[in-house]
């Protein structure tokens, strides 16, 4: 039965986009060009390679016509017109280089420079400043101002990442428009009026947007500058390397700028399909960890309980014996891949399968189970014209900020609907419908929705189920986003999408992986039942959960972990601790002294994303290349070199390529072979998962009224990965907290700001209580992956848990701070993370 479609979604036409597809002929400076009717004159000129100077205009934002530098002469119009806001029409003749235009530009520049401090020699923007450049090209050579200049605040601390110089500001409002139009946050504004106008925030508060760094790039003058880059370099002294951000699975393109072999800053490198020219602050500022004491600079081998520095060969030799012995009995496991490059992940599974002869290989170091949809893979650009965005599990502002910008635009500017299904009220920058649903039941909801959509509206389920079904049926294009944690729900979503697809709805799915290259590692075969390119293996190995369980039970002799920190990120903290303590031999390849590396027998110092070349696969399955920008420290080797040397030491020389190009060729060869073999098959085989119902430990929860269900929630700067160690993001890092419902707060005698101790199956953590109704009654939302308060102590392998909550009184807190109170189990891990 065909489903009647709703009236569809009303879309506003973006002012930036031409209003029609009809081409019109325009002549600019004597050159003819055909552009769509409604194109802005400045863009039409660009099509001819003619650059009209602009300050307030930015191609990603609505034109405002504030600065007047783009004045051009248009025949039959008596006055000069601004090219940024005037649209072309048939037969228009434009002059951008006439004497009238030149005179107008000189005048505008003279005004813009009237109160400008001209402190270019000490300004970070000097050398890449539009005010400087246009003054050189078009400006008057001297000022006619005899009076003293206006003075405004200088070196204003605008927020954790930005310094503002109000005197340099020309009030083009690019930054405030970015915050309003692109970020949809509206916290950065112009205050006061006329010549007193200032860029500011409410009551001088900090500007803390996750996207704040972008304002330093789009500022056409030196008003907004980046704190970490302040006075560090001149733009002409920087070397540039094209790279890919590895802080989340979006895979924004960026440029690494280096000087004297050290990273000075990162800079956007627009890829419209992926990042649309923006990067988030976590991506932008997380590189200083490379220069911290916690950075591993040489291999370490445990002797007599203590780490001692070792040469690379010594570390290889110390690992070869235990790994070879374990491989012989098959009691060996390998975890990692989600933070490695595609070729490294491929080589890691090859190391497991061909050198250690085991299928016990898994990239999943957290609660995530899937990194890709079986079918209907969406592209990020699909969000742009989606009419309904359905999210469950993923908190996109925290996990994939640049994806979230696209989502914000779709909702705020294109009137897409946003629907969040999940166990807590989410925080989005744009209006969102929220349907409270317990995590385990979302699969059932998807199945019910399938039924209702399939059978039409006569057969109604619950009131709201048919309501959602109506939304789905009425939507023109549906994009679903989830975090891959609930394999059953993902399967049910696939079937729902099948049903919708059957009725001609364009549908797509995006899975936000927990690690930057989760998707690449899955495709490269870091999965116990799948070899590269999703080819099922005959005898599947053990999942991470099974390996950890085996290790904890003394059934595993050696574990090799590369670029993963399960001690902090694996949900069942108790299990992972027992596993890492029980396994007779643990080797870890890491960049930093993580909680996992801290308990290893051998630690290899691995190179970072900036010190090697390779590829990363983002959440939409797009493979992107990145290049080495700096040399690694002596003693630091790439993961490929580590795997290759280990293979050689185990008598399998040449099996693992030591350089990225050769490894990539091997990966491509494996993929080509498989692509031919697979033919037209469209649904990807699914990674082996553990039965969620079995994962619940079944530990009796004492049913007093002090017990709360624990749901971990991600936070952009919360931890997990290198950001936890980076001084660049340290000012933004949150303190651990738990969101508790007001009703529970009354019951537990808690106020916002109180310290509360949460005790669960694997120990206890201490967090700050925040009282808000984002948490449903009986639930505490606890920040995930915080080294100083690892929530995985409270969770089981399902990713959820329960804990008793107790308010800490002042004297207990004092004792806790002095370190003399009873130390909760597992504090050794926290100590390893806390010191860095």
């Amino acid at each position, binding site marked *: 039965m065909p489903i009647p479609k709703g009236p569809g979604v009303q879309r506003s036409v973006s002012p930036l986009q031409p209003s029609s597809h009809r081409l019109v002929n325009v002549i600019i400076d004597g050159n003819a060009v055909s552009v769509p009717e409604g194109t802005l004159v400045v863009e039409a000129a660009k099509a001819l390679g003619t650059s009209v100077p602009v300050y307030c205009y930015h191609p990603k934002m609505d034109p405002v016509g504030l600065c007047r530098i783009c004045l051009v002469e248009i025949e039959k119009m008596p006055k000069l017109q601004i090219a940024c806001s005037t649209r072309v029409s048939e037969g228009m003749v434009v002059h951008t280089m006439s004497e009238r235009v030149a005179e107008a530009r000189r005048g505008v520049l003279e005004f813009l420079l009237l109160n400008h401090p001209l402190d270019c020699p000490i300004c970070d923007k000097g050398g890449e400043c539009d005010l400087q450049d246009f003054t050189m090209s078009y400006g008057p050579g001297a000022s006619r101002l005899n009076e003293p200049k206006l003075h405004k605040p200088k070196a204003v601390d605008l927020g954790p990442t930005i310094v503002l110089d109000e005197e340099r500001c020309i009030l083009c409002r690019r930054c405030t428009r970015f915050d309003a139009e692109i970020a949809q*946050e*509206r*916290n*950065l*504004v*112009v*205050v*006061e*009026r*006329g010549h007193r106008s200032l860029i*500011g*925030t*409410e*009551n001088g508060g900090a500007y803390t947007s996750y996207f704040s760094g972008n304002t330093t790039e789009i500022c056409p003058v030196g008003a907004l500058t980046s704190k970490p880059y302040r006075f560090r370099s001149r733009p002409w002294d920087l070397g540039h390397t094209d790279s890919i951000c590895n802080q989340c699975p979006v895979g924004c393109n960026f440029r690494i700028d280096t000087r004297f072999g050290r990273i000075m800053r990162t800079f956007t490198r627009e890829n419209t399909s992926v990042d649309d020219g923006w990067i988030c602050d976590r991506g932008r500022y997380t590189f200083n960890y490379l220069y911290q004491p916690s950075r591993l600079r040489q291999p370490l081998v445990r002797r007599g309980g203590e780490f001692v520095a070792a040469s690379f060969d010594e570390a290889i030799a110390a690992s070869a014996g235990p790994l070879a012995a374990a491989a012989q009995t098959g009691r060996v496991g390998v975890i990692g891949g989600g933070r490695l490059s595609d070729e490294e992940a491929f080589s890691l599974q090859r190391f497991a399968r061909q050198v250690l002869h085991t299928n016990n290989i898994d990239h999943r170091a957290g609660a995530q189970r899937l990194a890709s949809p079986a079918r209907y893979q969406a592209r990020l650009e699909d969000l742009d014209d989606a009419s309904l965005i359905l999210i469950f599990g993923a908190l996109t502002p925290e996990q994939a900020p640049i994806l979230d910008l696209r989502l914000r635009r779709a909702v705020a500017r294109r009137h897409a609907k946003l629907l969040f299904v999940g166990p807590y009220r989410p925080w989005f920058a744009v209006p969102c419908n929220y349907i409270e649903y317990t995590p385990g039941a979302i699969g059932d909801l998807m199945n019910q929705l399938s039924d209702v959509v399939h059978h039409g509206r006569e057969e109604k389920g619950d009131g709201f189920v048919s309501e959602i079904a109506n939304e789905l049926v009425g939507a023109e294009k549906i994009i679903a986003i989830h975090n891959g944690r609930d394999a059953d729900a993902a399967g049910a979503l696939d079937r729902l999408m099948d049903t919708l697809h059957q009725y001609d709805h364009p549908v797509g799915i995006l899975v936000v992986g927990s690690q930057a290259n989760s998707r690449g590692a899955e495709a490269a075969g870091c999965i116990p039942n799948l070899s590269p390119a999703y080819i099922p293996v005959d005898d599947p190995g053990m999942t991470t959960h099974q390996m950890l369980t085996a290790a904890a039970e003394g059934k595993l002799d050696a574990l090799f972990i590369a670029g993963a920190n399960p001690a902090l990120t694996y949900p069942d903290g108790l299990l992972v601790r027992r596993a890492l303590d029980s396994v007779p031999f643990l080797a870890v390849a890491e960049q930093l002294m993580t909680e996992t590396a801290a308990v290893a027998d051998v630690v290899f110092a691995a190179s970072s994303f900036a010190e090697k070349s390779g590829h990363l696969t983002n959440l939409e399955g797009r493979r992107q290349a990145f290049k080495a920008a700096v040399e690694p420290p002596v003693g630091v080797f790439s993961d490929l070199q580590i795997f290759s040397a280990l293979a050689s030491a185990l008598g399998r020389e040449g099996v693992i390529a030591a350089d990225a190009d050769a490894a990539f060729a091997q990966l491509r060869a494996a993929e080509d072979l498989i692509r031919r073999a697979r033919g037209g098959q469209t649904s990807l085989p699914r990674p082996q998962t553990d039965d969620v119902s079995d994962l619940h430990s079944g530990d009796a929860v004492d049913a007093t009224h002090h017990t709360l269900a624990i749901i971990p929630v991600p936070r952009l700067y919360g931890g997990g990965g290198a950001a936890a160690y980076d001084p660049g993001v340290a000012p933004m890092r949150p303190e651990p907290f738990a969101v508790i419902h007001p009703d529970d707060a009354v019951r537990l005698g808690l106020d916002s700001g109180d310290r509360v101790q949460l005790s669960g199956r694997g120990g206890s953590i201490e967090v700050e209580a925040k009282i808000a109704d984002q948490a449903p009654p009986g639930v505490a939302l606890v920040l995930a992956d915080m080294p100083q308060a690892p929530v995985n102590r409270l969770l089981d392998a399902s990713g959820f848990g329960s804990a008793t909550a107790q308010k800490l009184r002042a004297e207990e807190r004092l004792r806790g701070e002095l370190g003399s109170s009873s130390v909760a189990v597992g504090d050794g891990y926290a100590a390893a993370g806390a010191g860095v």
Partner: protein
Amino acid sequence: MTPERERRGAQLVAKYPNAQSALIPFLQACQEEDGYVSGDAIRDAAELTGITPAEVESIASFYSLLFKEPVGKHVIQVCRTLSCMLRGADELRDHARMRLGLANGETSADGRFTYEEVECLAACDRAPCLQHNLEFHYDVTPEDFDRQLERWRAEEPAVTMPAE
């Protein structure tokens, strides 16, 4: 938000097709109550109209008759824009500062006088001008200013600031 303020806000919002239209009347109501637009008023206004507190501040700070701090009974605002400057507003400004003993934006210790230099008061045809509470004074010479000041010092203003 106090219940009283919430009630007032709801009344104002009901008068317009769009809640944001109630912003300035609401800020005026808050100013009438508190004597100035407090930080709380800014946050209340944001809650009422569904915009961010930063946006409210941006709008509130635009208007010279919305005060961010408590002001005196007599608010004297001297125009300092072009037409007035060409007609001697700089002299008037210096004179007013000296006679009041106040710098731009200051309120006297006894809380009676606030002095401010403001943008165009839209009386360019009779420059230089000043505004005393809601009353305009045109073609103001330093002597006129002194005469007026005597009067202001002697009596309570008919309309005190903030006024509705």
